């Protein structure tokens, strides 16, 4: 046979894909619940507590409600694009999880299974490509709605994401100077051996964090939605599960960017102050996944904490911040890092 198919590998990856997709959907579901709870406790309220004990069935109830709502497709919209919009938003949101190293290798049935769907050697570029595709979902949906508020939202989303992708990329270039490669797995291994990247790149992390907020359309950068000025922005015309997809993809994006930030700057699945080599690798891999999740949860909490503290920026403030503050700052950070890396290569001689 010319083509030998490695069936166990395919099954292994398929199972991993299903787990990752299901997990990110489940986490996104409970992130909506967490958002409402966090909002409540930050505002001295109690939050949802009726559905099930402590309200833990609330996301299920919300999901069911969205499913049973009437599905309205406005007759002045272009139907194909109208459906394509939320689908694309959801698709790109889920796709990002493919290159994230969720954990170390585990040995099962005499096979070494890497807890990463695909160790792409340009992993971080893949993430960038997919994330910037995410804006198409919003743009197409808002365009297809044939509604001026939706269109405004879509316009804002597009310009915002393009503006903030630049400083994000620039801050990442500085990080790549330090790590020397693009594979997320390699970055984690480096951080496991040495120090976390946040130590080398504090400014880069700050810029990346701000841009991540903007890319996820979270407050203070939630201008594309802007409930009170654009009546929900790009999803004004959407109802039922299509609206659910938009809202859901926002939460998945939030989860994925939390994971990416943990991976890039906070050691990924590395457990701090523990030498993984001393213990059973299978258990360590499991704890590693938990460590990554814990870091991601911290970031998700930060996302929510900021959302319920800071009011939305004005549009010109947004553009000012992106182009006149973050980009020069990221450039400066990049040049500084480059100079330091060069000096270090040169053994600190000019």
């Amino acid at each position, binding site marked *: 046979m010319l083509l030998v198919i490695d069936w166990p590998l395919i099954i292994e990856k398929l199972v991993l894909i299903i787990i990752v997709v299901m997990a990110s959907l489940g986490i996104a579901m409970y992130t909506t619940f967490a958002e409402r709870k966090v909002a409540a*406790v*930050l*505002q*001295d*309220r*109690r939050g949802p*507590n009726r559905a099930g004990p402590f309200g833990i069935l609330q996301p299920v109830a919300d999901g069911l409600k969205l499913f049973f709502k009437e599905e309205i497709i406005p007759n002045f919209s272009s139907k194909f694009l109208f459906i394509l919009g939320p689908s694309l938003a959801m698709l790109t949101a889920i796709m990002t999880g493919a290159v994230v190293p969720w954990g170390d290798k585990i040995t099962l049935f005499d096979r070494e299974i890497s807890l990463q769907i695909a160790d792409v050697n340009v992993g971080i570029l893949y993430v960038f490509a997919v994330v910037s595709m995410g804006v198409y979902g919003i743009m197409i949906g808002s365009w297809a709605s044939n509604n001026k508020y939706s269109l405004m939202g879509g316009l804002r989303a597009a310009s915002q994401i393009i503006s903030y992708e630049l400083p994000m990329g620039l801050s990442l270039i500085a990080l790549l100077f330090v790590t020397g490669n693009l594979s997320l797995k390699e970055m984690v291994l480096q951080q496991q051996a040495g120090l976390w990247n946040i130590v080398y790149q504090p400014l880069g992390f700050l810029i990346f964090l701000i841009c991540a907020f903007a890319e996820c359309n979270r407050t203070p950068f939630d201008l594309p939605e802007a409930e009170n000025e654009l009546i929900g922005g790009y999803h004004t015309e959407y109802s039922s599960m299509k609206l659910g997809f938009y809202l859901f993809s926002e939460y998945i994006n939030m989860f994925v960017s939390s994971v990416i930030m943990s991976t890039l700057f906070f050691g990924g699945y590395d457990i701090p102050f523990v030498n993984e080599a001393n213990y059973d690798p299978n258990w360590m891999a499991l704890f590693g996944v938990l460590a990554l999740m814990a870091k991601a949860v911290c970031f998700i909490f930060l996302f929510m*904490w*900021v959302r*319920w*503290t*800071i009011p939305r920026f004005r549009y010109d403030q947004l553009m000012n911040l992106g182009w006149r503050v973050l980009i020069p700052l990221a450039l400066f950070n990049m040049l500084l890092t480059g100079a330091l890396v060069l000096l270090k290569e040169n053994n600190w001689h000019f």
Partner: protein
Amino acid sequence: MKQVDRREMNFLERIYLVSIFKGMMITFSHMFKKKPTINYPEKTRPFSPVFRGLHILNRDEQGRENCTACGLCAVACPAEAITMEAAERKTGEENLYREEKYAAKYEINMLRCIFCGLCEEACPKDAIYLSETFAPADYQRKQFIYNKNELLIPHPVNDPEAYKKALGNRVKRPTAN
């Protein structure tokens, strides 16, 4: 008088991050504050003894209705929510009605009622008072016209527990009779 501060923002204020951090600390501190919300159906707030809720038609200790259908409550009612029809007590009904005249029909429209308590003040027989029950809910408007069945307090001899519950911790004014 306080002067408006029109200084130029200094560097720390202009980078905005410090103020964001301050604001986030304020919201964070609210996480540990006591929540003023009361989980309503499970817990209820204690009422003042003079709380004015839904009306109750009173009975005396032997379970006889106090109301004599004098109509003073209906006259006192500013919302004109009370309707009644009087009837004469027949022999053999002494255990039902305390005096010779009683209300055959007694209706209060709870949608009109403003819960002012003037009916209670007007009543010379301590026959009507406002209880601690509130927030009635129903599917139809006509269900809010309460008749005697819904208004009368449970019988103190036949059903003493329900009677006590309906009485609540209301402070009874001494009656003149």
